[in-house]
């Protein structure tokens, strides 16, 4: 069992249910094979689609001939780029360059796996048979995959309207960065390469589309997860009114980690396909399609330099980065680049910085939200440089971090880039991490190991965990003048809605506008409502099916950017508090006592002085439903409350490009000990401690699960997985044999501990923690391996650190040419 110790913050109210690990409500159906994922839905007379994909990385489509495919028995419909060009509009793209991005290739194919045609047939087997009969003629063009080479003048151009393949270029400056570099005692520089890997949920994209030719309504069942800006974007692409476009999300989604935000091009494709036929059309993405053409994390080359004083204080930094977003700038990209803008200084008191951000298109799969979303890139650069500072000054890397931390008395802390860190105690959390890891003892163990010639390393990585994205942050990708234009619609905010109702017999039902993919929302919501209404979680039924026609939602709805634990729980808690007030007022009215004297205990109300005269909750609820005219004067009929919680500080970016890109900011400190096998180069994680401050903890075991899952994604990208392309743009990792996700035998045990600095901005003081160590684990692994290799004078500036790569680093250190 993993060692877990946590400290309770004094002044924390002792909750009955919040803070306890109650059994999960979702488990019974999932454990007995009665879950409802999209592919389990039984839609009558559903037919199946298959998509023909480009084998070329860059080519002009000269001819498509579907005749042989269409007269295969059982085939009933098809679309190609021509239909898409004629009947849909390009997706709106955030950046300044007017790139044309459609759900299917219309003129050229720009990455291997890009959809070229789609077929509907009686079953998936027949649809794939039909794909083999489609004849396509391509005129191949040279391909480019390296982001730095893609911007050179000789590079092939993907989009005529996008010069030098640069989809977005912004230089953001904060504070006085030149002064910082002048005052510095020394400057450190590194070129760092962050790899392209993907969260790869086990359930692939899944869509069922049904078009009503008479009413004009289009219904799309899918494992879509938000944000719901994708609803207007899809409606606009399909030239269909939003109130005619219905998204239905079933109760169960098989993991997402951000990926299923990028399903909307396929929603558009299936929508158009279902308009060609009179039956519902189901498309279940297969694993090869997913690994080739769903969504991947941006790969990045960055040049970072830091200005440092002789006692290790970081005065400022400059970063020039090249983010490789693949063939199309697909909304919400370039969010990888701009999402962490509010917390780009991490947990440190850096005041001056400049970011030269180049968002580059190449002939690779388009990128999109993945777990960590930009923060793994950020903290890989930041923490590698922190270790370089320690190395230069011969200081303990822990000490360098302690010197630079933002101090507890400075919260809420406004960062130079406009982020507002709500709460935290970084030194305390970091000390707890050192204690949990037993840092001193591990350094001693390292000393003895090194005397035996063993390659033993200790890595540290800390980071601020941003959650609840402010919908306005992405507009910092636009020049400030663009944002001043009169007909430009500024964007901001982060909200969530919850509806709670009590039925005539006094049981509680909660409706959400979240789309959970395994985070246990039904359980957490039942805990919160039970706490506020003084019931038990088993009295609370939570419905998390989502239906844009029935559920109340806003542009920022959905389950992404670890938002539910703060914005979702706040909406639920507020709705429960309001409903509690109402039932207490009805009870006081029926008991003829003042509302302050009403006591509620095991489902009965009574006046404090007259405990024997009590009425049951079902009586109060019954009154509200059966006898509404007996309610207190002016009280609204019914027992249901809908509350929307919105963050007040989620403003649009100001003229100086400052924006509070997220609304709650947690803290993480990871420590890891590793050993490298000198013969094979294989890295083994010997020990891993991880401390998190996610504000008020609601369900400890669910939080621990998020930390374990997040850490595993980070370790996967640092040691195992990578989407690899050859120089001609062919993807070489389209199976799970070649795209190497770690299994149980590769997973470490983690000693997890917490501190709780409640957020002043959320109702329960809770913050998001869904991405957690997916942001810091890659940096921690890199620092640990670098530490293990430092006696040999080897530097680590690139991931993944596969056995082959580590062996090559060892060879270069041992003077052999590899």
């Amino acid at each position: 069992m993993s060692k877990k110790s946590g400290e309770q913050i004094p002044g924390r109210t002792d909750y009955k249910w919040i803070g306890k690990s109650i059994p999960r409500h979702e488990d019974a159906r999932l454990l007995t094979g009665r879950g409802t994922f999209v592919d389990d839905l039984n839609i009558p007379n559903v037919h199946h689609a298959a998509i023909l994909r480009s084998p070329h990385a860059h080519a002009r489509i000269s001819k498509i001939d579907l005749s042989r495919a269409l007269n295969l028995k059982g085939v009933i419909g098809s679309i190609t780029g021509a239909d898409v060009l004629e009947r849909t509009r390009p997706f709106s793209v955030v950046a300044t360059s007017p790139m044309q991005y459609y759900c299917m290739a219309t003129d050229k194919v720009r990455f291997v796996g890009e959809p070229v045609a789609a077929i509907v047939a009686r079953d998936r087997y027949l649809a794939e048979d039909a794909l083999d009969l489609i004849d396509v003629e391509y005129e191949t063009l040279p391909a480019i995959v390296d982001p730095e080479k893609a911007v050179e003048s000789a590079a092939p151009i993907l989009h005529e309207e996008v010069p030098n393949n640069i989809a977005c270029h912004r230089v953001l400056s904060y504070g006085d960065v030149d002064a910082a570099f002048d005052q510095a005692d020394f400057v450190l520089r590194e070129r760092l390469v962050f790899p392209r890997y993907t969260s790869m949920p086990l359930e692939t994209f899944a869509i069922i589309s049904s078009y009503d030719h008479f009413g004009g309504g289009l219904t799309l069942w899918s494992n879509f997860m938000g944000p719901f800006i994708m609803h207007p974007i899809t409606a606009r692409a399909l030239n269909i009114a939003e109130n005619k476009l219905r998204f239905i999300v079933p109760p169960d989604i098989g993991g997402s980690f951000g990926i299923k935000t990028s399903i909307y091009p396929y929603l558009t494709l299936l929508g158009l396909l279902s308009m060609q036929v009179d039956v519902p059309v189901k498309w279940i993405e297969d694993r090869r399609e997913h690994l080739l053409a769903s969504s991947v994390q941006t790969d990045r080359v960055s040049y970072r330099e830091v200005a440092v004083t002789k006692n290790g204080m970081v005065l400022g930094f400059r970063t020039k980065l090249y983010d490789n977003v693949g063939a199309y700038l697909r909304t919400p990209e370039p969010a990888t680049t701009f999402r962490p803008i509010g917390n780009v200084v991490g947990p440190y008191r850096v005041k001056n910085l400049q970011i030269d951000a180049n968002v580059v298109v190449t002939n690779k799969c388009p990128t999109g939200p993945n777990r960590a979303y930009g923060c793994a890139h950020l903290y890989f650069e930041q923490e590698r440089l922190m270790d370089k500072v320690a190395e230069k000054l011969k200081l303990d890397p822990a000490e360098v971090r302690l010197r630079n931390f933002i101090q507890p008395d400075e919260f809420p802390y406004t960062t130079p880039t406009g982020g507002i860190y709500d709460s935290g105690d970084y030194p305390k959390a970091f000390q707890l991490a050192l204690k949990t890891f037993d840092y001193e003892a591990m350094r001693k163990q390292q000393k003895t190991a090194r005397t035996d010639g063993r390659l033993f390393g200790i890595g540290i990585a800390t980071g601020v965990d941003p959650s609840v994205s402010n919908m306005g942050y992405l507009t910092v990708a636009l020049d400030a003048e663009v944002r001043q234009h009169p007909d430009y619609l500024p964007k901001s905010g982060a909200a969530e809605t919850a509806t709670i109702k009590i039925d005539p017999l006094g049981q509680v039902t909660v409706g959400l506008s979240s789309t959970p993919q395994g985070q246990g929302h039904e359980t957490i919501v039942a805990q919160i409502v039970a706490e506020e209404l003084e019931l038990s979680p088993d009295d609370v039924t939570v419905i998390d099916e989502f239906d844009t026609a029935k559920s109340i939602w806003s542009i920022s709805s959905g389950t992404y950017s670890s938002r539910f634990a703060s914005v979702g729980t706040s909406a639920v808690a507020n709705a429960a508090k309001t409903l509690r007030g109402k039932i207490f007022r009805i009870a006081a009215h029926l008991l003829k006592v003042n509302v302050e004297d009403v006591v509620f205990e095991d489902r009965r109300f009574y006046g404090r002085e007259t405990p024997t005269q009590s009425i049951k909750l079902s009586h109060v609820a019954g009154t509200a439903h059966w006898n509404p005219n007996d309610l207190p004067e002016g009280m609204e009929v019914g027992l249901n409350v809908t509350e929307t919680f919105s963050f007040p500080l989620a403003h649009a970016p100001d003229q100086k490009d400052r924006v509070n890109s997220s609304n709650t900011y947690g803290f993480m400190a990871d420590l890891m000990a590793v050993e490298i096998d000198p013969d094979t180069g294989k890295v083994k994680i010997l020990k891993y401690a991880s401390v998190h401050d996610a504000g008020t903890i609601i369900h400890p075991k669910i939080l621990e699960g998020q930390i374990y899952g997040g850490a595993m994604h980070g370790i996967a990208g640092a040691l195992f997985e990578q989407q690899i392309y050859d120089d001609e743009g062919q993807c070489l990792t389209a199976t799970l044999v070649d795209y190497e996700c770690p299994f149980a035998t590769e997973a470490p045990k983690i000693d997890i501990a917490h501190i709780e600095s409640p957020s002043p901005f959320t109702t329960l003081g809770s913050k998001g923690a869904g991405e957690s160590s997916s942001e810091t684990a890659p940096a921690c692994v890199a620092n640990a391996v670098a530490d293990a290799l430092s006696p040999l004078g080897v530097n680590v500036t690139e991931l993944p650190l596969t056995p082959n790569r580590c062996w090559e680093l060892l060879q270069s250190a041992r003077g052999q040419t590899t």
Partner: protein
Amino acid sequence: MKPVSFDYFAPTTVNEAVALLEEHGEDAKILAGGQSLVPMMNFRLVRPTCLVDINQIKDLAYIHEKDDRLHIGAITRHRDLETSTLVQQCNGLLLEGVQLIGHTAIRTRGTVGGSIIHADPTAELPAILAALDGEVRLIGPNGQRTISWRDLFVTFFTTVIEPVEICDEVIIPRLPSDAGWAFEEFTRRHGDFAVAGVAAVIVTDNNDRCTDARLAITGTAPTPIRATQAELFLVGKSLTQTTLDEAGRLVSTEVEPESDVHATADYRKHLAGALTTRALQRAVARCHSRKDQQEK
């Protein structure tokens, strides 16, 4: 990822199977365990129009020993080898090698004949056949023939088996009773296809000199190979650590691997040597412990 359509036959005798192969020719394919064939069919990389399922030929599943050789029916499951006391008693190398194959669910269906005829150069069973000079028996329209592993493997996924032939038995010589053995593999994840692997067998005389050395290497050539230079070097030597290191070095100079997405040629070349040394260390240790047992 659905397979193309095919005609399906499930013969219950070998002759019936051979007749079907003759009748359907080039595009007929034998379905044994299916753990390598079906993934390739689902990817539509392989598109047989006729499948001859030999899982109903019950008398092709057996393990028995005759004149110091294990005779194993072609559709004997990997899992059957794992749990067979006969294999445990007379061929530790086979047992250790089988346990490295994929995962339990793969070994439940995977067959001995299937994985040898599939001839994946990183697979464990072909390497064991090479290390112990095993043979396979092929049955065709005009009778049967027994082929040694040296003549069986041609290149990637290719053996000398004719489209009309079926492998009905694999013959693996028994490990010499005083031999030490070890199967050492390097994979990035447990159960992966091996980046490189070494099946080692060592026999020593009473004053600890090596009298017989077998080193079969996987992952460095289109087929499993024997590292003959290193084997010749070992015979006659006392197996000190320096000897074992030198044997490893010889193997890495002997092999000419390819690069791919999992490993560079240089890295595989190095690994073949490093794994040889590790395999020999374990084999020598087993050799000593078996000798101690025999003295007791």
